[in-house]
């Protein structure tokens, strides 16, 4: 159907620099998503005009800490709290941190169950 969906792979320490670059070029943050069990792939989606760009970041396990982008994009805190609750990904310095109580489920980390806390 549609438009080009560009995809750029980056490493965790390049994340704040790349996201600030997107912000100053006028892109808006559309969503933050993650998938997988064991090694986890995190995906940041941006959009400007109708063009769509994704930044993909792979971390080897949930113990690796990922820096938060909520200082640059204020609406990122909802997506980062959700990642923390459902997958167990540790994100540092979220602007409003619910500390695991965003979705109150009976099972901790329902989407990534074999990860140890």
């Amino acid at each position, binding site marked *: *159907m549609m438009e080009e969906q560009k995809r750029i792979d980056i490493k965790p320490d390049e994340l704040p620099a790349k996201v600030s670059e997107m912000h100053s070029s006028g892109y*808006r943050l559309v969503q933050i*998503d993650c*998938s997988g069990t064991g090694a986890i792939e995190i*995906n940041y989606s941006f959009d400007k005009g109708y063009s769509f760009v994704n930044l993909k970041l792979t971390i080897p396990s949930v113990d690796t800490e990922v820096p938060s982008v909520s200082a640059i994009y*204020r*609406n990122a805190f909802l997506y980062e709290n959700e990642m923390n609750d459902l997958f167990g990904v540790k994100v540092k310095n979220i602007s*409003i941190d619910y500390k695991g109580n965003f979705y109150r*489920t009976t099972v901790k980390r329902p*989407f990534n169950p074999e990860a140890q806390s």
Partner: protein
Amino acid sequence: MTKRTIIPFGPQHPVLPEPIHLDLVLEDETVVEAIPSIGFIHRGLEKLVEKKDFLDFVYVAERICGICSFIHGMTYCIAIEEIMKIKIPERAEYLRVVWSELSRMHSHLLWLGLMADSLGFESLFMHSWRMREKILDIIEDTTGGRVIFGSAKIGGVRKDIDDATLKAIVKNLKSYRKELKEITDVFIKDPSVMHRLVGVGTLKKEDAYELGVVGPVLRASGWQSDTRKLGYAAYKNINFEPVTEKAGDSYARCSVRIKELFQSIDIIDQAVSKIPAGPIEIKVTGTPDGEFFARTEQPRGEVIYHAKAYGTRFLQRLRVRTPTFANIPGLLKMLPGSNLADVPVLVLTIDPCISCTER
């Protein structure tokens, strides 16, 4: 230093259609800060995709939300069709457009009724929902269900509408337009309604873009952005322009939705005049392998389905980002500085569909 009190705007409230919780920090009846808390209807539907065959999951996707149900099913089908590189017949694309626009009309009329109810204007609420019944009758005649259509399918649509019925629908909607104008004029011109909506909850243009709000909330602050312009499902052959307003307050959001109602009737007219004859579905074989982001325009904004598949009959990951999830930061920016009595009106202007937000 004035004393601060915290009031819970609870999950149970007469004005809310679905439960959401806000903790409001007040100084003498003026809201200073608001902290949201969601998760009351979390059903874990994204986990279910690992257990259900990808062809059967359309039924679950349609039932994520009751108001915008057809567009959820259609977006799931578009995501899988793009991964498997299937091209569906033209007639199916036009039928999808007709049903999407009917969905949009019934959702906006539902919202208009709830808005009138939150202001206390109950008889206008009843009249809006009476107008909505006529749209639901058209939908029941063509698909069989009033809210859950059951007509999206990977490879096309499940049911056909014959040409005579399509022409009858267009004729019905022409006479419907006059009655609709009478009701929507009350929202736009009545002084008591205007007094409650004008100047309340203003969201400035730069803030709206930065916070990532979508849909009518973004268009009411002056940005011309409508995901239907991407051209999925026969929208590439239809001429229309996104409706915008400049003021960014609740009155602007109300009037954007009213103009979109009339624009939907025009779009259905154009689609019915251009629809070709032909088959409505195509046979699907094989399993999906790949990844795609499907973006479509729901009545509340832009919805994104991220589907990832590795060649088996079950998808590996399906992620649904719904428009209300993106509009919550906008709500948190609108609330500080407003009165406690305006909070229900402001929560309703973003059109909260909480069962979509926490699938």
